[in-house]
């Protein structure tokens, strides 16, 4: 991984229309974007189409990225997340979300600028997710990777809405605990 200053330089060059810089960012982040779209869509061809759409949105809207508002990868993955969920909805399974490149709707979904996100921490989050008890993991997966609301999850699983809320909160608390444990180390 190249230093952050190099990443900011690449982003700036993409904002200025530099295709080589754009393809360099693609080389660096396409595997992460594709992993996410594949996880959501569960279909290689659809996932590649959405990966492509995500990077085209980056090309067309790079000027909307503000480094002081959050990490670039989080911003890019949030676009990929919403684009993939929109694709699920376009298949007729879910209602459409708002514009997935609208900066005002994206920024509140990102963590703040003090986020100390790094490779090791993200990986520990993945393992913490795998270690959740099955009911909690199912709720998180349906919410985050399938775009279902709490009511939709309750309907899908045949659980009371209160149970869904309790399990979702318990799951996120468990993940938050894991996150804070990394802070303490």
């Amino acid at each position, binding site marked *: 991984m190249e230093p952050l200053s190099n990443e900011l330089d690449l982003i700036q060059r993409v904002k200025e229309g530099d295709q080589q810089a754009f393809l360099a960012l693609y080389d660096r982040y396409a595997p992460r974007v594709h992993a996410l779209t594949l996880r959501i869509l569960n279909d290689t061809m659809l996932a590649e189409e959405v990966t492509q759409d995500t990077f085209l949105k980056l090309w067309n809207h790079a000027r909307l990225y503000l480094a002081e508002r959050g990490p670039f990868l989080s911003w890019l993955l949030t676009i990929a997340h919403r684009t993939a969920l929109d694709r699920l909805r376009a298949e007729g399974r879910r209602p459409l979300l708002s514009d997935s490149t609208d900066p005002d709707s994206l920024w509140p979904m990102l963590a703040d600028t003090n986020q100390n996100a790094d490779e090791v921490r993200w990986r520990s989050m*993945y393992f913490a997710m795998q270690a959740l008890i099955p009911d909690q993991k199912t709720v998180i997966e349906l919410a985050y990777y399938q775009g279902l609301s709490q009511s939709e999850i309750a309907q899908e699983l045949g659980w009371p809405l209160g149970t869904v809320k309790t399990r979702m909160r318990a799951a996120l608390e468990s993940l938050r605990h894991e996150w804070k444990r990394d802070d303490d180390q």
Partner: protein
Amino acid sequence: MINEHNQLQDNLAAYALNALDPDDIPALETHIKTCASCQATLTEYQRVSAGLLAGLPPRPPRPALKRILAAQLPGNANNVRARFTSWSLAQFAMAGAVVLLLGINLFSLFQVRSLQDQQAEMTRQQETEQTALSILAYAGTQSLPVSGEGLTGSLLLDRDRNAAVLFVWDLPLLTPNQTYQVWLIDPQGKRISAGLFNAVTGRPITIFELSSPKPLSNFTSMGVTIEPRGGSPQPTGPRILSVNF
């Protein structure tokens, strides 16, 4: 007041995951503006949700995708056409030679990338086979015979670890506009896609790792149909394989 805070605090996790029901959002957003405790909790939940997005193991797309993406970036086609109008015959001849050379190079490049695609497919197959071997090592794994007209196979099923791998012998190659699609079927008969796959030229055994959005214990059977390329939301084509769990 405290009760209201506790009730709204229960919604923070769903809000951070973008899963809060729309009717509940305005009250929570109003509350967050004046509640430092909820703001702090929400910030931490949002860090976690960002971590969930970035934490998946990287999965490189096919190398061809970069080429397709690059081709969609704004080119200079209009400008090139405008310049042609003022070119001489010699310049056109020179351009023709260049185009011919480029064509030859592109053909070579296409062949190289085709090989890269094949290599990526082999890597995916290898990962699937490793998963199958891992499942086989577990004591609780079931091996179920899969049947279909003129086809044989088996399904390795490990409900505890929510993993399943399908093996099919002598699966016919489909046309480029078709794909095999796996369906998991629950006790009510509802079908959920567990992924798409195709037979590989020259391989007598096709191996595919199912991908289920729900625990496999929710399902009672599995089927495979032939669907249009890209798959279908529900089965539309003929069922060629099935197995009851």
